[in-house]
């Protein structure tokens, strides 16, 4: 069930569009911000709030990269693997993360602390390589720096 607050927030987003379904992606983001990912029940709940069907919402949800339809850990690492970061050594960071966290791309650590996801160019190309952890952007990285940064996320 969506909380009153979430429904209120979705209604608020829906009010700016000619049709309520316009707020579909906003609603998915709102739910994901609170829960980390979007489960099947939330898909149905969003559908109900926006006058859509679960199929319609899920059709949209699965189209977009940033909407996660599988459970994630407490922190989500989005590592940029696009061209500028690749040139500047993002592969090395990916290897480092996979090694230290013991997971592959798209996986979550056993203790549920981190989920590691590959991300498209983060628009931080002049400070490559870069990654995001949750809402924070980290730039000009190397494994040494990254180790310290990871420690901030428990």
């Amino acid at each position, binding site marked *: 069930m969506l909380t009153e607050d979430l429904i209120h927030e979705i209604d608020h987003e829906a009010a700016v569009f000619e049709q309520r379904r316009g707020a579909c992606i906003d609603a998915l983001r709102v739910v994901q911000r609170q829960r980390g990912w979007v489960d099947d029940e939330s898909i149905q709940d969003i559908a109900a709030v926006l006058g859509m069907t679960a199929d319609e919402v899920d059709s949209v949800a699965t*189209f977009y990269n*940033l909407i996660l339809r599988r459970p994630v850990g407490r922190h989500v690492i989005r590592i940029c693997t696009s061209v500028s970061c*690749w040139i500047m050594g993002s592969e090395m960071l990916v290897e480092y993360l996979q090694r230290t966290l013991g997971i592959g791309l798209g996986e979550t650590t056993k203790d549920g602390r981190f989920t590691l996801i590959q991300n*498209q*160019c983060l*628009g*931080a190309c*002049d400070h490559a390589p870069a990654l995001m952890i949750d*809402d924070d952007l980290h730039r000009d990285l190397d494994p040494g720096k990254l180790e310290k940064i990871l420690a901030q996320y428990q």
Partner: protein
Amino acid sequence: MSERPLTERIRPDGAPITLSEYEAAGGYQAVRKALGGMSPKDVLQVVKDSGLRGRGGAGFPTGVKWSFVPENPHPKYLVVNGDEMEPGTFKDRVLLEGDPHLLVEGVILASYTIGADVAFVFLRGEYLESERQMKKAITEAYAKGYLGKNILGSEYSLELYVHMSGGRYICGEETALLNALEGKRGNPRTKPPFPQTSGLWGKPSIVNNVETLCNLPGIIAKGPEWFKGLSKTANGGTKLIGVSGKVKNPGLWELPLGVTFREVIFGHAGGMRDGLSLRGIIPGGASTDYLTEEHLDVEMDYETVAKVGSRLGTGTMILMDNKTCPVGMIHNLITFFAHESCGWCTPCREGLPWAEKTLRAIERGEGVMEDLAVLDRLVVDLGPGMTFCALAPGAMAPLGSGLKYFREDFERHIREQRCPWK
């Protein structure tokens, strides 16, 4: 130092300019001027005269695009394209985070001109700081009467909202963006009809890039001649130009259009890092063709870069040094495009994964010579005019030009059955 109307206010640390700072620096004077005495037609004429061209990549003249918007029906929409997902591109973010009121003012001017009732800023999903700054600026602008009903006592009203993308590169394509904004899957739309006549919710709409709109306050306040004078070529204005890759000083600068690649790369960016030399330049985001050292003296404007077989694109260049494997780099780019294909049309949906797998095989030393023929064919079949939108042709730009300039590298991978850079 030449004038930098887009970035002159931006602080070295990038912290946002507040409303009062913006106003103190002459901000919102253009809105006062336009709404205070210019008709939308007048504003349109000024923008046309300035020769401003879209900074989103395609370089279409902004005033001309606006002139296709019909008088009716309402509501009409202005949509700011702040999707910025093209690899190697990091210019709009600087404006969004550093000087959000500049964009708000640009939005008001554009909206006024086309008679828009509602405007949306469509931001890429990861730009959370941009979201924060834009929302703050919008709230401030509403409070000061720059937005909302009867702006500054005029007849004109405008609502402005921020929408965060669900994240897909195709959403930067203006018609896919409209679908995304309608809460749908971000497949691009058929053109014609253009958004100008049937856009958001089927209503007349204009989609403009962030940087494009940020040029408007200056143009309106100081006039088209001033704007044209900013550049070194026939294309008016300055351009945000960025450099990423292994240079000494990667970054973003506001420079006059017409500046040469050499000035940018070896001047502003400090040249290649020690021990490295320059092999390839992707001039304006991942979907533009490679140029090489021989093009260093080409002037960066829309026509001149096109003349040498590439595009100015977003103006943010990616440099390939001599220690970076061209096959690996192109494979990286095609992997991106294959993943970001919306899945609507056949050549793009099926062709890009094939190209990706072929490049991966070559890069891993598992290539065969026939693979090059496959890639050559895909460059044609996914090229301009063949696909539904410009995503796949964009992807073919680095692949096609890469096969041209670095063919020997491809062949060597296949001959030696390994990546010579590894």
